[in-house]
């Protein structure tokens, strides 16, 4: 029934597909971080309609399934003349979806900065850009690194959804192996183990970083 030989023989193929999975996670995370930061800034804007629009958009994206959003980007965008490759559509969907989570993370980081820091910045006649880049962000980011790390791991575990829009990553590869040999058990077990072997140590590392940052900053958020 279970064949060890087969389970080992397909490993190289799956590990090759793992590279695509990791690439998608990294690019998706960068998009999520940039968009998340953008939402956070928009939510702090003095312009009320912008705040309401961004809040509503974020709430909507957060409440609807990533899979449907991926389908939307992959199938609906071409109707408006924007055709994306599975990889591009995938990382865009992944990034957009998780940007709505990361905006909360950025918000907690920025809210934790004492008011005096802002006041000191303006008292010293720093420009708004300088206050953000030189005073606020350098203090807001380090305490939220563990939370960002957790979301990175969450996004990594969500990448199999990209197989639904025909990106050939690990799950898609396992499916192809399965349908060619009818050995689904080995293929999917291997994929599960690869996910576990990567994500479990990663979560332990995030735990260690969290402890270090707690020591250094006195409290965590």
């Amino acid at each position, binding site marked *: 029934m279970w064949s060890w030989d087969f389970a080992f023989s397909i490993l190289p193929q799956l590990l090759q597909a793992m590279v695509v999975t990791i690439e998608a996670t990294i690019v998706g995370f960068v998009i999520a971080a940039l968009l998340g930061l953008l939402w956070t800034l928009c939510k702090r804007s003095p312009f009320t309609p912008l705040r309401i629009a961004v809040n509503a958009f974020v709430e909507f994206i957060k409440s*609807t399934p990533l899979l449907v959003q991926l389908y939307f980007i992959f199938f*609906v965008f071409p109707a408006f003349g924007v055709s994306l490759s599975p990889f591009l559509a995938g990382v865009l969907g992944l990034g957009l979806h998780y940007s709505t989570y990361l905006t909360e993370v950025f918000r907690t980081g920025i809210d934790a900065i004492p008011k005096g820091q802002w006041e000191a910045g303006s008292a010293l006649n720093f420009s708004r850009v300088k206050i953000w880049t030189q005073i606020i962000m350098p203090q807001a980011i380090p305490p939220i690194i563990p939370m960002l790390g957790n979301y990175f791991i969450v996004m990594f575990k969500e990448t199999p959804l990209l197989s639904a829009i025909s990106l050939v990553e690990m799950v898609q590869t396992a499916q192809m192996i399965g349908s060619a040999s009818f050995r689904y058990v080995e293929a999917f077990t291997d994929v599960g183990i690869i996910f576990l072997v990567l994500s479990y140590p990663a979560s332990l590392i995030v735990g260690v970083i969290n402890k270090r940052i707690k020591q250094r900053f006195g409290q965590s958020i």
Partner: protein
Amino acid sequence: MVSNIAIFNSLLKGLAVTLQVLGYSVILALGLSFIFGFLSLSKWKMAKIVSHLYIEIFRGTSLLVQLFWLYFSLPILGIQLPAMLVGVLGLGLNYGAYGAVVVKTSIQAVPKGQFEASVALNMSPFRRMRSVILPQAFLIMLPTFSNLTIELLKGTSLVSLVTLSDLTFQAMALRSATMETVKIFTILLILYFIVAYPITLAFRWLEKKLSVGRG
């Protein structure tokens, strides 16, 4: 050209399946959360190891991988499950693992004095848990459970990939039948939001109600 009513009707049929999957898997996940949450707090070492393994395996491998494993692998191993059961089992086991951590950390977050006071008052362990610790821990769990329920609702869209005819599955079928992609997927997103929003509101209401008189 398919009429809007026809599109809407078949999406509603899918919505019924989605809600069914959601209902069953919420119940399963909630049960598993409490079972494994309590086990991981137990003094018995074996129980701790078992719950730790459950939590790490189901959190560490991806939900879709688990669903595919149940769907494709079990029949080869001689166990044939209907698609509905695969969906509910996969979602329940996955979110149960996340819930177990919530139950565990929420019980641990109840101040130690509460525990000591109920011991000093000679309450039985069961009474202590039921009347003192859990009512407080439950309040701590609620916001996270609210988020997890929304995550679970979003997760139900994955059952369409194991051929269960839920909302997303119906939309994909309609897409290939009618090619009205823009309309179908826009309605689909809005329908999911219409289901999710009342859940969020209901949890907020429950939280408010339960925290009355608790400073």
